[in-house]
Each structure stands twice: as C-alpha cells, then as structure tokens.
C-alpha cells in the first residue's frame, strides 16, 4: 500500500518537474495531506495546502484545487512546517580544516559576520535538510565573549544571498567556561567569569558612548552643516544596534551564576535577548520568566558533559516551559542521537522530560521563528508564509517516523529514496 503510494508520488513528482520546467514559475502545487500540523491554528485532518511561487497561498479543508495544479498525494502522511535549528555552527566547519566558528585572536569580535565563513555546499547542511530542517541560525561558537553576528539562513541555495533570511540576526555573546578556557590558557583577559562580564559591559558602555556621539552629530547637523561626523566603528556598530533594540543578543550561558550574570547585563543595558544553553535554567526559571527572556536549550546532554553542564536534566525544557518561559529546542551535539538532523528526537526527549507536546512542537517551529525574528516568513503553515514543508510518515516525535519529502520555498529539496 505504502509502496504503491510512494510510487504514485514519484510519478506525480516526475510530472511536476516536467510541468514546472515547461511553465516556469506559474504553477500551483496542491498537497493533499492526511494531517496538517499548522502549529498556529491547530491540526487539519485531510487538508489541502496550495503553493504558488514559493509561498503558501491557501491552507484548509476541501479547498478548490485550480484545474492545472500539480497534485501531490500525501493523504497517508503528515505535513508540518520546515523545522528550525535555532543555534548551530554547521557550514562554518570544514572537514580536514581547523574550525572557523571562533576567531580566538581577540575575545571581542562583534564586527565578524558568519556569512563570511558559511559554505553553502557544506555536506553538514545537506544532511540536516534530510531530517526536515529547513532553516537555521548559523552563529559564531562559544569561545569569544562577543563572537560576532549570526545569520538566519534557509538551508538551500548556492550563494549566501540565496540563503539569507535575516542578516545580521543579532550578536552572539558567551559567558562561562568557553571564553575562560580559550583566553585563560593564553593568560589573557578573560581568564575568569568576572573578566568575561567586564568585557561585555565595557564593550556595551563603549557602544553607548559611540551611539551618543552619533545622536549628537545628527542633532548638530540640523543647525550646523559643517558638523563633524563621528568615525564609523565596525566593532561598535552592531553593539549600538543591540542598545537600540534593533538586534537581539544571543547569550550562551549554562550555570545559574552565568545565567544570572546574563540577566544582570540584560537589565542594565535593556537588551532584547535570548539565552542559549541554559542547562541550569530550571533552577532560576522564575527569574527568566519574569523578564520574558526566551531560551534555546537542548533537553538533554547527549554529548560529552562539561563542568558547566554537569547538572543537565531531561526535565529542564518542561520546567522552564511550565514556569512560563518561551522554550526553543535545538540539538547541542553532532553525532548519533545528538545529530542536528535528529532535531525531532531532541524535542521528543523534552516531552519525555515533562514538556507539553504542543509546546515541544512549537519549540522547533514557530517559537524558534519568533525569537529569531522571522515569524512573518516561516515557522507555521499559514497563508502567505514561505512554503517550507516537511512530509512525514507519521507522528514527528515517534522514532519510526521517516521524512518523505522536504520543501524549501516551494521546491523539493529532499525526497526519500526507496530502501536500498
């Protein structure tokens, strides 16, 4: 039965490709789905999704299908929005080359842009798409106190401009063991936690001064055409945008002391921020919830445990979520169970640890889109959003569920091949 179905799918796709080839971008694609997890407006049984020019143009039950539409029969399957990996360094690391996610020649490098290191042809990126992940926040690593500017990218395309959804997507900040280890070994500031916090504070204070110089210049310019323009400082520009609330600070921190330092800095400089890592988050859940700061966490320590993640628990996601924190789930390792490709497994672990199922599903779709600032484009199956879709053989959290097809911008980027 299933085989027959996928065979007919293949035929339909072959026709689809032919058809698209003939009539360029004009075609409408209609996906007949057994179940649509819209995420933002519930589950639609036996629904239809209409796609045109890379966008979802309609979603619902018993929709009229345009006569010339290409029909994809997924009536035995479940369709969900493309999943979002909210914090990763994939594409920055080439095999047989030292990693390039951390510019460890200077602990503060807000001027750096990950898009200048991102390789669209990275095989890690391709592999991740196979798992139904269609968008990622690519970010600098955790060794620099201020690592640089992350970018939200679609995981398809041959150039950065084809991939980018939002750039810069924020500023990456890191507290705790990472910078300490990287610079302490060189006997350079920061070799302590207070050293790291000082550097963040100093950089933001400098940025505040810089911002004021520009504001004053703008004021003076109105009356004095000869007013001297301040020098453009590429290091302080992104930090000034942080202070203005135009960019988000992604602050990596694991232990309660680091989380509290992050919250102190957020309060002091009134930052729009997201906490990343947050292994001990559940211990200070109320502090995080009170400030309405979202978190990006991995529900369990799959990979090697570090000193600062030694107390990690599967219950973290559930406890944070129940305390009212917006929780986004990502994968924190790269191999086996922890592979980024297996993001739904990470979310399933969160459910096992007590997180509500619906919340866990949101944690890898719409909530991720919201905290990355791209919810107008992705994260749910809604009219007007990008047609980033995953067709699954069943419940996204069940280990036997396979990814059948993946669409990014209305185009098929992955299709399951028949078994061997």
């Amino acid at each position, binding site marked *: 039965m299933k085989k027959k179905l996928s065979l007919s799918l293949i035929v339909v796709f072959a026709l689809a490709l032919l058809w698209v080839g003939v009539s360029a971008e004009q075609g409408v694609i209609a996906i007949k789905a057994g179940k649509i997890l819209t995420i933002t407006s519930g589950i639609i049984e036996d629904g239809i999704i209409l796609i045109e020019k890379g966008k979802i143009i309609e979603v619902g039950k018993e929709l009229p299908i345009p006569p010339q539409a290409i029909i994809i029969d997924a009536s035995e399957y479940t369709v969900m929005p493309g999943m979002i990996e909210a914090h990763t360094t994939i594409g920055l690391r080439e095999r047989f080359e030292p990693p390039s996610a951390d510019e460890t020649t200077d602990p503060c490098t807000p001027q750096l842009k990950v898009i200048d290191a991102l390789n669209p042809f990275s095989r890690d990126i391709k*592999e991740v798409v196979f798992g139904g992940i269609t968008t990622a926040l690519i970010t600098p690593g955790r060794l620099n106190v201020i690592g640089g500017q992350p970018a939200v990218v679609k995981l398809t395309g041959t150039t950065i401009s084809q991939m980018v959804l939002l750039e810069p997507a924020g500023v990456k900040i890191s507290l705790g063991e990472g910078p300490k280890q990287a610079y302490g070994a060189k006997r350079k500031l920061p070799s302590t936690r207070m050293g790291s916090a000082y550097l963040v504070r100093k950089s933001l204070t400098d940025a505040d001064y810089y911002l004021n110089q520009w504001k004053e210049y703008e004021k003076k310019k109105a009356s004095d055409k000869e007013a001297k323009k301040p020098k453009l400082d590429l290091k302080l520009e992104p930090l000034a945008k942080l202070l203005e609330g135009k960019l988000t600070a992604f602050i990596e921190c694991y232990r309660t002391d680091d989380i509290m330092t992050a919250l102190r800095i957020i309060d002091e400089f009134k930052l729009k921020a997201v906490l990343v890592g947050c292994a001990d988050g559940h211990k200070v859940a109320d502090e995080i919830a009170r400030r309405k700061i979202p978190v990006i966490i991995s529900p369990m320590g799959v990979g090697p*445990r*570090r000193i600062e993640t030694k107390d990690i628990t599967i219950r973290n996601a559930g406890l944070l979520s129940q305390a009212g924190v917006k929780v986004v789930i990502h994968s924190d390792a790269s191999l086996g169970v922890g592979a980024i490709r297996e993001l739904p497994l990470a979310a399933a672990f969160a459910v*096992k640890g007590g997180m509500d199922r619906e919340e866990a599903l949101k944690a890898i779709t719409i909530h991720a889109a919201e905290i990355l600032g791209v919810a107008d484009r992705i994260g749910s199956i809604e009219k007007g959003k990008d047609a980033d879709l995953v067709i699954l053989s069943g419940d996204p959290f069940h280990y036997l*569920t396979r990814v059948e097809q993946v669409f990014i911008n209305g185009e098929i980027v992955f299709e399951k091949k028949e078994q061997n």
Partner: protein
Amino acid sequence: MFQRSVVIAAILIMLSGLFIFPTAGEEKVIAIRAGKVHTVTGGIVEDGIILIKEGKFLAVGKGIDIPEGATVIDVPQGVVIPGLIDTHSHLGLGPSGGITEDNEMTSPATPGLRIIDSLHPRGLMPHQDSYLDAISEGVTTVIARPGSGNVIGGLSALIKLSGETVDEMVLRFPQDMKMAMGARGGLPGYPATRMGTAWTVRKAMNEAQEYADQWEEYRKEKEKNKDANPPKVDLDKEALLKVMKGELPVHIHCSPTVDILTALRLGEEFHFKKLSLGHATGAYKVADELAKQGVAVAVGPQMMVFDEEREELVNLADFLLRAGVKVSIITDADVVQQEFLRYQAAIAIKYGMDPEEALKAITIYPAQFVGAADRLGSIEEGKDADLVIFDGDPFDTMTQVLKVFINGKLVYEKKDES
C-alpha cells in the same frame, strides 16, 4: 582518629552482615513474570517467565513452574530484554576533549598501559554518576578502552557496570589492544601523517619481534650456559608480544576508508587475531572485504554516513550487516553519553534497520564480538542474569526503564514520581 573509626565501622558492618545473612547457603530463586520477553536468541515469549538463581538464568519460557518460596516480580506490561552491551566506551574516564583519563598523550605508542588503572567505578567529574546513569538506561556491560589520542593506546577491559571496585567489575582483562589510525597533524613527538601513524605501529611491532627474538636467544643460551643474562623485561613489548602470538585481539579506531584499509593491511602484516574496527564511517565502501576477512565493526557514535557521490545517507550498521559484516552498535561514550545506547540503535531502525537485528546489535552481537556469548547477550538458561525491564517498546523515546538486573541483582529501579 578517623582511621580508627573507619576500622570500627568496617568491623560493625561485617558483623551485621553475619546477622543479616545467617544462612548464606542457597540463594532464593527470583521469578520475573513479564508481558513480553525478548530472549534474542530464542525468539519472543509472550507472557513469559524468567527464573534466576545465583546470578544466572535458570529457565525462561511460558508457563514455567515457579518454585515455592521464590521472590516473584510481576510486570504484566513489562518488556524484557537482555542487558545492553557497548563494545566501545570510555565510560568513567572523564569527558572526551576535557580532562581525560583515557589518553596518555606523552608518547604515541603506549601498549603497556592498562585501562583498569584509570577507571573510576562511578565515573569522574563532570559526570560523576555516569555508571548509574548508564545502568538506569539498561546498559550492563561495556568495553572500557583507552582513547584514540595515541596510535597504540593500551589494553582495554571488559567490565560489568556493577561493583564497588574496578576489580569487582572486571569480566576480562586484558580484553584487547587498542590502536588508532588517522593523521595527527604535528603534535610534538607524534607522527603528523597517516603514513607516520602506520609506521608507529610497524616500528613497535618490529621492536616487539626483536624483543621476542632476544628472549628466544636467551632461552637457547641458557640451555648451554646456566648463568646467561636474561634480557630486561619490557612491559610495552610484553603487551605487544601477546598481540603477536595471537593471544590478544586488536581493536582499531579508524574513520575514512583510507584508514580502514591501512588497519586491514597492518592486521594482515602482523597476523592480528580477531581484528575489529571502531567507528569506521567509510566501511560501507569496503564492506565485502571486511566480510571476507571476518573483521567486525563497532558502529557509532555516527550512525548515518553522508555519501557525497550519491548525496544520500548510508545507514552504516544496516548496510554492513546486510553485507555479512559482524556489527555492534556503540556510543563511544561519552562522545554520545553511555545511557543513550538504545537510542543509537533506534536511529538505525528509523532509517530502515530491522528492529530485531538492531536489538541483536546491542546484545548478542556485541557478546559474540567480545567473545563472551557463553555468558552474555541473551536470555538463555545458564547465562548471566543481566536484564532490563521496560514499560514498552525498548526503542521508543517515551519508554521508561522499570528495573535493571546485573548478575541476578536488582541494580536499578524506577522511582514512582509525583
């Protein structure tokens, strides 16, 4: 003062032991009644009964008579499988990449090192309870190995995850010699290239041969001259001699196909007995050769390999098994934490591996791999009573472990929450 109180406490404990177990003679039979028993080697028994006596399985089957006076454990919804086995672990040796006890990186060849001298029976910071965590997810036996920092890392041990001291835990030592292929890129005192790595092995093996020859000469000499001077005992060479004589298996860490081929070549050159490979992500390209040579592969922590030519994922464990290669699934703990072993197998199943084969790849296949299938790997009369009771499908993420037994003793029990 402190010491004295410890001694007194110890005496008291010993005395109390005498009172608590006055008739230490015959142990009671434990009977487990479970909804489903995966014996692994003898099929699935629905509503099965398992009898355990003196740490061993006494019987397993349907409708078996439960001896009078037996301790009965009833788990009508329970699913029972043998204790899980991981053939490639660094459990209890500190975090990989952190302060680690498994890589003595002061010289590239350290065959004389014994992993049991580094093992902590509970686990080290930052994962002090790593053994308990592993048991709580059903892992009962592992091969603890030296890391892959060195070309010749040292001697591995087969251990059960219960016991107060390392010596209590050891099932077999030495289990095998650990080696590692691959380039090491310019670490002082270390080979920089793959050729340098192979040379390190070759050189060590040749030196061990010279050493053996010296001893042989000495023995001959001694027949003629009673006062002949014996050569100096060299612990490193003694260990390699065992490899050379075929007394000790060899396990080689390798990743791309180029390293696998070098491992095979070295194996052939020095007649490695029971050669096995760890990780071996490129193994699918030479699967037939591995099958032909009977070389087993420990698959993991990477379960799926991206084939760049075909742009698809290869399910490594499944692929190798189909090609006739002996396979066990591993975590490489704590690259992936030890307790996630069953999920490593679940990933292989997700991408098409037969669930029964996946179960074998973490039970009976590793038992065969380690040469202990007479004691481990299945629920069979006479084998060690190592078993796990789940509340459902052992591969399902949501499934919980209810109880774990090692050598017939309850070593983990799920606490009731709420």
